[in-house]
Protein backbone atom coordinates (compact mmCIF):
# COMPACT_ATOMS: atom_id res chain seq x y z
CA UNK A 1 0.00 0.00 0.00
CA UNK A 2 1.56 3.30 -0.92
CA UNK A 3 1.50 6.30 1.27
CA UNK A 4 -0.70 8.49 -0.87
CA UNK A 5 -3.49 6.01 -1.08
CA UNK A 6 -3.43 5.47 2.61
CA UNK A 7 -3.78 9.20 3.27
CA UNK A 8 -6.33 9.40 0.55
CA UNK A 9 -8.45 6.92 2.45
CA UNK A 10 -9.74 9.66 4.70
CA UNK A 11 -10.35 12.49 2.28
CA UNK A 12 -13.96 12.80 3.36
CA UNK A 13 -12.65 14.73 6.34
CA UNK A 14 -11.04 17.39 4.17
CA UNK A 15 -13.42 20.15 3.19
CA UNK A 16 -10.92 22.73 2.03
CA UNK A 17 -8.33 22.40 -0.70
CA UNK A 18 -5.72 23.33 1.90
CA UNK A 19 -6.46 20.10 3.74
CA UNK A 20 -6.41 17.96 0.64
CA UNK A 21 -3.62 15.48 0.40
CA UNK A 22 -3.89 14.53 -3.24
CA UNK A 23 -4.49 16.48 -6.41
CA UNK A 24 -7.62 14.47 -7.12
CA UNK A 25 -8.98 15.31 -3.74
CA UNK A 26 -8.16 18.95 -4.16
CA UNK A 27 -9.89 19.07 -7.53
CA UNK A 28 -12.91 17.31 -6.09
CA UNK A 29 -13.16 19.85 -3.29
CA UNK A 30 -12.75 22.74 -5.70
CA UNK A 31 -15.47 21.36 -7.88
CA UNK A 32 -17.74 20.97 -4.92
CA UNK A 33 -16.99 24.54 -3.84
CA UNK A 34 -17.74 25.85 -7.32
CA UNK A 35 -21.07 24.05 -7.29
CA UNK A 36 -21.85 25.58 -3.91
CA UNK A 37 -20.83 29.07 -5.04
CA UNK A 38 -22.89 28.85 -8.14
CA UNK A 39 -25.88 27.72 -6.12
CA UNK A 40 -25.38 30.57 -3.64
CA UNK A 41 -25.16 33.03 -6.51
CA UNK A 42 -28.34 31.63 -7.98
CA UNK A 43 -30.02 31.94 -4.62
CA UNK A 44 -28.94 35.55 -4.34
CA UNK A 45 -30.05 36.38 -7.83
CA UNK A 46 -33.39 34.75 -7.23
CA UNK A 47 -36.32 36.98 -7.74
CA UNK A 48 -38.24 37.14 -4.49
CA UNK A 49 -41.98 36.79 -4.82
CA UNK A 50 -43.98 37.39 -1.68
CA UNK A 51 -47.08 35.25 -1.62
CA UNK A 52 -50.03 37.31 -0.54
CA UNK A 53 -52.92 35.02 0.19
CA UNK A 54 -56.08 36.46 1.65
CA UNK A 55 -57.57 35.44 4.97
CA UNK A 56 -61.22 34.67 5.38
CA UNK A 57 -63.81 33.97 7.98
CA UNK A 58 -67.26 32.63 7.41
CA UNK A 59 -70.27 31.51 9.40
CA UNK A 60 -68.73 28.44 11.02
CA UNK A 61 -71.95 27.55 12.89
CA UNK A 62 -73.72 27.27 9.58
CA UNK A 63 -70.99 24.97 8.28
CA UNK A 64 -71.22 22.81 11.38
CA UNK A 65 -74.96 22.50 10.87
CA UNK A 66 -74.54 20.74 7.50
CA UNK A 67 -75.95 17.25 7.60
CA UNK A 68 -74.69 14.99 4.82
CA UNK A 69 -77.21 12.22 5.61
CA UNK A 70 -79.17 12.72 2.36
CA UNK A 71 -76.02 12.07 0.30
CA UNK A 72 -74.28 9.78 2.79
CA UNK A 73 -73.55 6.93 0.38
CA UNK A 74 -71.93 9.14 -2.25
CA UNK A 75 -70.22 11.20 0.43
CA UNK A 76 -68.55 8.19 2.07
CA UNK A 77 -67.37 6.88 -1.29
CA UNK A 78 -65.84 10.20 -2.23
CA UNK A 79 -64.14 10.67 1.13
CA UNK A 80 -62.80 7.09 1.03
CA UNK A 81 -61.33 7.81 -2.40
CA UNK A 82 -59.71 10.99 -1.14
CA UNK A 83 -58.36 9.22 1.95
CA UNK A 84 -56.90 6.46 -0.25
CA UNK A 85 -55.08 9.31 -2.00
CA UNK A 86 -54.41 7.77 -5.42
CA UNK A 87 -52.38 10.82 -6.41
CA UNK A 88 -49.97 10.49 -3.54
CA UNK A 89 -46.46 10.31 -4.91
CA UNK A 90 -47.61 11.59 -8.23
CA UNK A 91 -46.45 15.14 -7.71
CA UNK A 92 -42.82 14.24 -7.92
CA UNK A 93 -40.35 14.99 -10.62
CA UNK A 94 -39.31 11.94 -12.59
CA UNK A 95 -37.67 11.26 -15.93
CA UNK A 96 -40.58 13.04 -17.65
CA UNK A 97 -39.46 16.31 -16.15
CA UNK A 98 -37.27 17.55 -19.02
CA UNK A 99 -34.75 20.29 -18.58
CA UNK A 100 -36.23 23.69 -19.21
CA UNK A 101 -34.16 26.20 -21.11
CA UNK A 102 -35.20 29.25 -19.11
CA UNK A 103 -32.29 31.35 -20.36
CA UNK A 104 -33.32 31.09 -23.97
CA UNK A 105 -37.04 31.43 -23.40
CA UNK A 106 -38.58 34.46 -25.05
CA UNK A 107 -38.67 37.13 -22.27
CA UNK A 108 -42.32 37.99 -22.87
CA UNK A 109 -43.32 34.34 -22.71
CA UNK A 110 -41.18 33.85 -19.63
CA UNK A 111 -42.85 36.78 -17.87
CA UNK A 112 -46.34 35.55 -18.71
CA UNK A 113 -45.55 31.97 -17.81
CA UNK A 114 -44.04 32.94 -14.46
CA UNK A 115 -47.10 35.08 -13.77
CA UNK A 116 -49.21 32.03 -14.58
CA UNK A 117 -47.18 29.89 -12.15
CA UNK A 118 -47.17 32.50 -9.38
CA UNK A 119 -50.89 33.12 -9.64
CA UNK A 120 -51.58 29.37 -9.69
CA UNK A 121 -49.33 28.89 -6.67
CA UNK A 122 -51.05 31.73 -4.78
CA UNK A 123 -54.43 30.28 -5.64
CA UNK A 124 -53.52 26.80 -4.41
CA UNK A 125 -51.98 28.35 -1.35
CA UNK A 126 -55.00 30.53 -0.58
CA UNK A 127 -57.25 27.52 -1.05
CA UNK A 128 -55.10 25.69 1.47
CA UNK A 129 -55.37 28.56 3.99
CA UNK A 130 -59.15 28.79 3.54
CA UNK A 131 -59.76 25.04 3.82
CA UNK A 132 -57.43 24.71 6.79
CA UNK A 133 -59.26 27.51 8.59
CA UNK A 134 -62.58 25.79 7.97
CA UNK A 135 -61.15 22.55 9.22
CA UNK A 136 -59.82 24.13 12.38
CA UNK A 137 -62.89 26.14 13.29
CA UNK A 138 -65.46 23.49 12.52
CA UNK A 139 -66.63 20.69 14.78
CA UNK A 140 -68.72 18.63 12.34
CA UNK A 141 -66.57 15.60 11.62
CA UNK A 142 -67.71 15.10 8.01
CA UNK A 143 -66.99 18.70 7.14
CA UNK A 144 -63.66 19.02 8.94
CA UNK A 145 -62.38 15.80 7.39
CA UNK A 146 -63.27 17.01 3.91
CA UNK A 147 -61.54 20.35 4.40
CA UNK A 148 -58.47 18.69 5.86
CA UNK A 149 -58.17 16.47 2.78
CA UNK A 150 -58.64 19.35 0.40
CA UNK A 151 -56.06 21.46 2.27
CA UNK A 152 -53.61 18.57 1.84
CA UNK A 153 -54.10 18.51 -1.93
CA UNK A 154 -53.81 22.26 -2.31
CA UNK A 155 -50.57 22.38 -0.28
CA UNK A 156 -49.19 19.58 -2.42
CA UNK A 157 -50.03 21.39 -5.63
CA UNK A 158 -48.55 24.62 -4.26
CA UNK A 159 -45.32 22.76 -3.39
CA UNK A 160 -45.10 21.34 -6.88
CA UNK A 161 -45.56 24.71 -8.57
CA UNK A 162 -43.13 26.24 -6.10
CA UNK A 163 -40.51 23.79 -7.26
CA UNK A 164 -41.07 24.74 -10.89
CA UNK A 165 -40.69 28.39 -9.87
CA UNK A 166 -37.43 27.69 -8.06
CA UNK A 167 -36.04 26.24 -11.26
CA UNK A 168 -36.99 29.46 -12.98
CA UNK A 169 -35.09 31.44 -10.37
CA UNK A 170 -38.19 32.66 -8.56
CA UNK A 171 -38.14 32.18 -4.80
CA UNK A 172 -41.48 32.18 -3.08
CA UNK A 173 -41.43 34.15 0.16
CA UNK A 174 -43.78 33.01 2.89
CA UNK A 175 -42.98 35.98 5.11
CA UNK A 176 -46.51 37.33 4.76
CA UNK A 177 -47.45 35.72 8.06
CA UNK A 178 -45.63 38.38 10.02
CA UNK A 179 -47.34 41.17 8.13
CA UNK A 180 -50.57 42.72 9.35
CA UNK A 181 -53.52 41.02 7.74
CA UNK A 182 -57.20 41.71 7.78
CA UNK A 183 -59.77 38.95 7.74
CA UNK A 184 -62.66 39.39 5.39
CA UNK A 185 -65.95 37.52 5.42
CA UNK A 186 -67.79 35.33 2.95
CA UNK A 187 -71.18 33.77 3.42
CA UNK A 188 -70.90 29.97 3.29
CA UNK A 189 -73.13 29.70 0.24
CA UNK A 190 -70.91 32.10 -1.69
CA UNK A 191 -67.93 29.93 -0.80
CA UNK A 192 -69.80 26.89 -2.15
CA UNK A 193 -70.77 28.55 -5.43
CA UNK A 194 -67.39 30.20 -6.02
CA UNK A 195 -65.16 27.30 -4.99
CA UNK A 196 -67.35 24.68 -6.66
CA UNK A 197 -67.15 26.61 -9.91
CA UNK A 198 -63.49 27.36 -9.43
CA UNK A 199 -62.67 23.67 -8.96
CA UNK A 200 -64.79 22.57 -11.93
CA UNK A 201 -63.56 25.28 -14.26
CA UNK A 202 -60.03 24.51 -13.01
CA UNK A 203 -60.55 20.90 -14.08
CA UNK A 204 -61.87 22.00 -17.48
CA UNK A 205 -58.96 24.41 -17.97
CA UNK A 206 -56.27 21.88 -17.10
CA UNK A 207 -57.75 18.98 -19.03
CA UNK A 208 -58.33 21.09 -22.15
CA UNK A 209 -54.66 22.10 -22.21
CA UNK A 210 -53.58 18.55 -21.42
CA UNK A 211 -55.63 17.04 -24.29
CA UNK A 212 -54.49 19.77 -26.67
CA UNK A 213 -50.83 19.07 -25.85
CA UNK A 214 -51.35 15.33 -26.26
CA UNK A 215 -52.19 16.11 -29.88
CA UNK A 216 -49.54 18.81 -30.24
CA UNK A 217 -46.56 17.82 -28.07
CA UNK A 218 -44.37 20.30 -29.98
CA UNK A 219 -46.13 23.10 -28.07
CA UNK A 220 -45.34 21.65 -24.66
CA UNK A 221 -42.70 24.20 -23.68
CA UNK A 222 -42.54 23.16 -20.03
CA UNK A 223 -42.83 19.71 -18.40
CA UNK A 224 -45.36 20.86 -15.79
CA UNK A 225 -48.12 20.43 -18.38
CA UNK A 226 -47.54 16.67 -18.30
CA UNK A 227 -48.81 16.65 -14.71
CA UNK A 228 -52.06 18.41 -15.54
CA UNK A 229 -54.13 15.24 -15.83
CA UNK A 230 -53.69 14.00 -12.26
CA UNK A 231 -53.72 17.55 -11.08
CA UNK A 232 -57.11 18.23 -12.54
CA UNK A 233 -58.47 14.99 -11.10
CA UNK A 234 -57.88 16.49 -7.65
CA UNK A 235 -59.75 19.60 -8.73
CA UNK A 236 -62.52 17.36 -9.99
CA UNK A 237 -62.95 15.55 -6.65
CA UNK A 238 -62.99 18.81 -4.75
CA UNK A 239 -65.76 20.03 -7.04
CA UNK A 240 -67.65 16.79 -6.42
CA UNK A 241 -67.47 17.40 -2.67
CA UNK A 242 -68.96 20.88 -3.04
CA UNK A 243 -71.68 19.51 -5.33
CA UNK A 244 -72.61 17.01 -2.62
CA UNK A 245 -72.58 19.75 0.02
CA UNK A 246 -75.01 21.80 -2.07
CA UNK A 247 -77.18 18.75 -2.61
CA UNK A 248 -77.76 18.46 1.15
CA UNK A 249 -79.82 21.64 1.09
CA UNK A 250 -82.17 22.07 -1.91
CA UNK A 251 -82.68 25.75 -1.01
CA UNK A 252 -79.10 26.43 -2.15
CA UNK A 253 -80.00 25.70 -5.75
CA UNK A 254 -83.54 27.01 -6.00
CA UNK A 255 -85.61 30.17 -5.61
CA UNK A 256 -83.68 33.41 -5.36
CA UNK A 257 -80.41 31.52 -5.19
CA UNK A 258 -80.78 30.75 -8.89
CA UNK A 259 -79.98 34.42 -9.48
CA UNK A 260 -76.80 34.06 -7.44
CA UNK A 261 -75.81 30.95 -9.39
CA UNK A 262 -76.34 32.76 -12.66
CA UNK A 263 -74.31 35.66 -11.30
CA UNK A 264 -71.39 33.41 -10.36
CA UNK A 265 -71.42 31.55 -13.68
CA UNK A 266 -71.41 34.82 -15.62
CA UNK A 267 -68.79 36.47 -13.42
CA UNK A 268 -66.45 33.48 -13.40
CA UNK A 269 -66.60 33.04 -17.18
CA UNK A 270 -66.14 36.76 -17.80
CA UNK A 271 -63.17 36.94 -15.42
CA UNK A 272 -61.53 34.00 -17.11
CA UNK A 273 -62.00 35.59 -20.53
CA UNK A 274 -60.35 38.83 -19.40
CA UNK A 275 -57.50 37.12 -17.57
CA UNK A 276 -56.62 34.72 -20.38
CA UNK A 277 -56.41 37.53 -22.90
CA UNK A 278 -53.81 39.18 -20.68
CA UNK A 279 -51.39 36.36 -21.52
CA UNK A 280 -51.18 36.37 -25.33
CA UNK A 281 -47.60 35.03 -25.56
CA UNK A 282 -48.37 32.17 -23.18
CA UNK A 283 -51.33 31.02 -25.26
CA UNK A 284 -49.44 31.52 -28.53
CA UNK A 285 -46.62 29.29 -27.23
CA UNK A 286 -49.16 26.62 -26.34
CA UNK A 287 -50.66 26.98 -29.82
CA UNK A 288 -54.01 27.83 -28.25
CA UNK A 289 -56.38 30.55 -29.42
CA UNK A 290 -57.77 32.07 -26.19
CA UNK A 291 -61.23 32.50 -27.74
CA UNK A 292 -61.38 28.86 -28.77
CA UNK A 293 -59.98 27.85 -25.39
CA UNK A 294 -62.55 29.96 -23.51
CA UNK A 295 -65.45 28.51 -25.47
CA UNK A 296 -64.15 24.97 -24.96
CA UNK A 297 -63.74 25.49 -21.20
CA UNK A 298 -67.16 27.16 -20.81
CA UNK A 299 -68.82 24.33 -22.74
CA UNK A 300 -67.21 21.64 -20.56
CA UNK A 301 -67.89 23.56 -17.35
CA UNK A 302 -71.54 24.11 -18.27
CA UNK A 303 -71.94 20.41 -18.99
CA UNK A 304 -70.34 19.47 -15.66
CA UNK A 305 -72.31 21.95 -13.58
CA UNK A 306 -75.55 20.43 -14.82
CA UNK A 307 -74.94 17.90 -12.04
CA UNK A 308 -76.15 20.44 -9.47
CA UNK A 309 -77.01 23.85 -10.95
CA UNK A 310 -80.59 24.45 -12.11
CA UNK A 311 -79.41 26.47 -15.12
CA UNK A 312 -76.55 27.07 -17.54
CA UNK A 313 -75.67 30.36 -19.21
CA UNK A 314 -76.22 30.65 -22.96
CA UNK A 315 -72.68 31.06 -24.28
CA UNK A 316 -73.84 30.87 -27.90
CA UNK A 317 -76.14 33.86 -27.60
CA UNK A 318 -75.06 36.74 -29.92
CA UNK A 319 -74.78 39.12 -26.95
CA UNK A 320 -72.37 36.80 -25.14
CA UNK A 321 -69.21 37.20 -27.19
CA UNK A 322 -69.81 40.85 -27.98
CA UNK A 323 -70.07 41.85 -24.33
CA UNK A 324 -67.13 39.70 -23.25
CA UNK A 325 -65.07 41.64 -25.78
CA UNK A 326 -66.39 44.95 -24.42
CA UNK A 327 -65.47 43.90 -20.87
CA UNK A 328 -61.97 43.03 -21.99
CA UNK A 329 -61.44 46.39 -23.75
CA UNK A 330 -62.99 48.40 -20.93
CA UNK A 331 -60.86 46.60 -18.37
CA UNK A 332 -57.70 47.70 -20.19
CA UNK A 333 -59.09 51.27 -20.50
CA UNK A 334 -59.78 51.41 -16.76
CA UNK A 335 -56.26 50.24 -15.96
CA UNK A 336 -54.80 52.88 -18.28
CA UNK A 337 -57.00 55.57 -16.71
CA UNK A 338 -55.93 54.51 -13.20
CA UNK A 339 -52.29 54.70 -14.22
CA UNK A 340 -52.82 58.16 -15.69
CA UNK A 341 -54.48 59.50 -12.53
CA UNK A 342 -55.67 63.09 -12.10
CA UNK A 343 -59.10 64.42 -12.96
CA UNK A 344 -59.10 63.10 -16.52
CA UNK A 345 -57.97 59.70 -15.25
CA UNK A 346 -60.75 59.68 -12.69
CA UNK A 347 -63.33 60.64 -15.29
CA UNK A 348 -62.09 57.98 -17.70
CA UNK A 349 -62.12 55.41 -14.91
CA UNK A 350 -65.67 56.28 -13.90
CA UNK A 351 -66.81 56.16 -17.52
CA UNK A 352 -65.04 52.81 -17.93
CA UNK A 353 -66.67 51.38 -14.81
CA UNK A 354 -70.09 52.44 -16.06
CA UNK A 355 -69.49 50.77 -19.43
CA UNK A 356 -68.22 47.63 -17.67
CA UNK A 357 -71.32 47.51 -15.47
CA UNK A 358 -73.51 47.89 -18.54
CA UNK A 359 -71.68 45.12 -20.43
CA UNK A 360 -71.94 42.83 -17.40
CA UNK A 361 -75.65 43.61 -17.06
CA UNK A 362 -76.09 42.75 -20.73
CA UNK A 363 -74.37 39.39 -20.18
CA UNK A 364 -76.32 38.71 -17.01
CA UNK A 365 -79.68 39.35 -18.64
CA UNK A 366 -79.14 36.86 -21.48
CA UNK A 367 -81.88 34.28 -20.82
CA UNK A 368 -80.35 31.23 -19.18
CA UNK A 369 -81.05 27.64 -20.15
CA UNK A 370 -83.01 25.79 -17.48
CA UNK A 371 -81.68 22.46 -16.27
CA UNK A 372 -83.08 19.69 -14.08
CA UNK A 373 -80.15 18.19 -12.17
CA UNK A 374 -80.19 14.38 -11.86
CA UNK A 375 -81.16 12.71 -8.58
CA UNK A 376 -77.66 11.36 -8.13
CA UNK A 377 -74.97 14.01 -8.21
CA UNK A 378 -71.73 12.10 -8.63
CA UNK A 379 -69.70 12.32 -11.84
CA UNK A 380 -66.37 10.89 -12.91
CA UNK A 381 -63.81 12.85 -14.92
CA UNK A 382 -64.54 12.02 -18.54
CA UNK A 383 -62.90 14.68 -20.72
Amino acid sequence: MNMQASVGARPEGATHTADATTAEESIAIQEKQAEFDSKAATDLAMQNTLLTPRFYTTDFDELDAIDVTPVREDWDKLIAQMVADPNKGHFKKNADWDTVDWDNMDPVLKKEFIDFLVSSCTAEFSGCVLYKEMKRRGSNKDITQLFQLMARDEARHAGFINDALREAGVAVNLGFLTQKKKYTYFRPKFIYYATYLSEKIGYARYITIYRHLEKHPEHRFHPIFKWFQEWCNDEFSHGEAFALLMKTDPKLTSGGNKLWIKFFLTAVYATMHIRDHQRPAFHAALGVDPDWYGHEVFTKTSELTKQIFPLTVDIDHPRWKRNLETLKTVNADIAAAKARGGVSGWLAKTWGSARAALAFASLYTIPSKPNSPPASVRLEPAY
Partner: protein
Amino acid sequence: MGLLTREVERAPCTVEISHKFESLHAHVRFDNGAVIYPGDEVKVHGPEIMAPFGEIVIEQRDATIVRASKLERFWTRMTGDLEVMELCEFSFSDEVTL
Protein backbone atom coordinates in the same frame (compact mmCIF):
# COMPACT_ATOMS: atom_id res chain seq x y z
CA MET B 1 -66.67 45.93 21.67
CA GLY B 2 -67.76 49.46 20.90
CA LEU B 3 -69.62 50.67 17.87
CA LEU B 4 -66.64 52.66 16.66
CA THR B 5 -63.79 51.68 18.97
CA ARG B 6 -61.32 48.91 18.37
CA GLU B 7 -59.90 46.76 21.10
CA VAL B 8 -56.45 45.31 21.01
CA GLU B 9 -55.44 42.00 22.52
CA ARG B 10 -52.32 39.88 22.56
CA ALA B 11 -52.38 36.16 22.00
CA PRO B 12 -49.63 33.56 21.98
CA CYS B 13 -49.60 31.63 18.76
CA THR B 14 -47.92 28.77 16.96
CA VAL B 15 -46.75 29.45 13.44
CA GLU B 16 -46.02 26.59 11.10
CA ILE B 17 -44.38 27.18 7.75
CA SER B 18 -43.66 24.30 5.43
CA HIS B 19 -41.43 24.94 2.46
CA LYS B 20 -41.18 21.34 1.38
CA PHE B 21 -41.65 19.88 -2.03
CA GLU B 22 -44.52 17.74 -0.74
CA SER B 23 -46.30 20.65 0.85
CA LEU B 24 -46.11 24.41 0.72
CA HIS B 25 -48.22 25.81 3.50
CA ALA B 26 -48.26 28.34 6.33
CA HIS B 27 -50.63 28.51 9.26
CA VAL B 28 -51.11 30.46 12.47
CA ARG B 29 -52.88 28.89 15.43
CA PHE B 30 -53.78 30.87 18.53
CA ASP B 31 -52.71 28.91 21.56
CA ASN B 32 -55.24 30.53 23.91
CA GLY B 33 -58.17 29.66 21.68
CA ALA B 34 -58.70 33.24 20.47
CA VAL B 35 -61.21 33.38 17.62
CA ILE B 36 -61.00 35.75 14.66
CA TYR B 37 -64.11 37.59 13.50
CA PRO B 38 -64.79 39.48 10.29
CA GLY B 39 -62.76 42.68 9.98
CA ASP B 40 -60.24 41.80 12.70
CA GLU B 41 -56.58 42.39 11.98
CA VAL B 42 -53.83 40.03 13.04
CA LYS B 43 -50.14 40.73 13.26
CA VAL B 44 -47.61 38.10 14.25
CA HIS B 45 -44.63 39.72 15.99
CA GLY B 46 -40.95 39.11 15.51
CA PRO B 47 -38.72 38.81 12.48
CA GLU B 48 -39.95 37.35 9.24
CA ILE B 49 -40.03 33.58 9.41
CA MET B 50 -38.23 32.01 6.50
CA ALA B 51 -38.26 28.27 6.14
CA PRO B 52 -35.40 27.13 3.92
CA PHE B 53 -36.45 24.93 1.03
CA GLY B 54 -37.12 21.39 2.20
CA GLU B 55 -37.86 22.32 5.80
CA ILE B 56 -40.75 22.92 8.15
CA VAL B 57 -40.33 25.67 10.73
CA ILE B 58 -42.58 25.74 13.78
CA GLU B 59 -42.26 28.69 16.14
CA GLN B 60 -44.03 30.05 19.17
CA ARG B 61 -44.78 33.72 18.67
CA ASP B 62 -46.90 36.52 20.02
CA ALA B 63 -49.64 38.04 17.96
CA THR B 64 -51.66 41.22 18.28
CA ILE B 65 -55.30 41.02 17.34
CA VAL B 66 -56.93 44.35 16.60
CA ARG B 67 -60.63 43.68 16.99
CA ALA B 68 -62.86 45.38 14.47
CA SER B 69 -65.44 47.77 15.87
CA LYS B 70 -69.09 46.73 15.66
CA LEU B 71 -69.54 48.95 12.66
CA GLU B 72 -66.51 47.52 10.88
CA ARG B 73 -67.61 43.97 11.60
CA PHE B 74 -71.02 44.72 10.20
CA TRP B 75 -69.48 46.42 7.18
CA THR B 76 -67.14 43.49 6.51
CA ARG B 77 -70.02 41.02 6.75
CA MET B 78 -72.03 43.08 4.29
CA THR B 79 -69.29 43.82 1.76
CA GLY B 80 -66.83 40.95 2.12
CA ASP B 81 -68.93 38.92 -0.28
CA LEU B 82 -68.12 41.39 -3.04
CA GLU B 83 -64.58 40.09 -3.07
CA VAL B 84 -65.60 36.46 -3.36
CA MET B 85 -64.44 36.30 -6.97
CA GLU B 86 -60.88 36.16 -5.80
CA LEU B 87 -61.49 32.57 -4.76
CA CYS B 88 -61.34 31.73 -8.44
CA GLU B 89 -57.89 30.64 -9.22
CA PHE B 90 -57.30 32.64 -12.34
CA SER B 91 -58.18 36.02 -10.88
CA PHE B 92 -55.25 36.53 -8.60
CA SER B 93 -52.91 38.69 -10.61
CA ASP B 94 -53.79 42.38 -10.54
CA GLU B 95 -51.73 43.30 -13.55
CA VAL B 96 -53.85 44.02 -16.56
CA THR B 97 -50.99 43.98 -18.99
CA LEU B 98 -47.98 41.89 -18.20
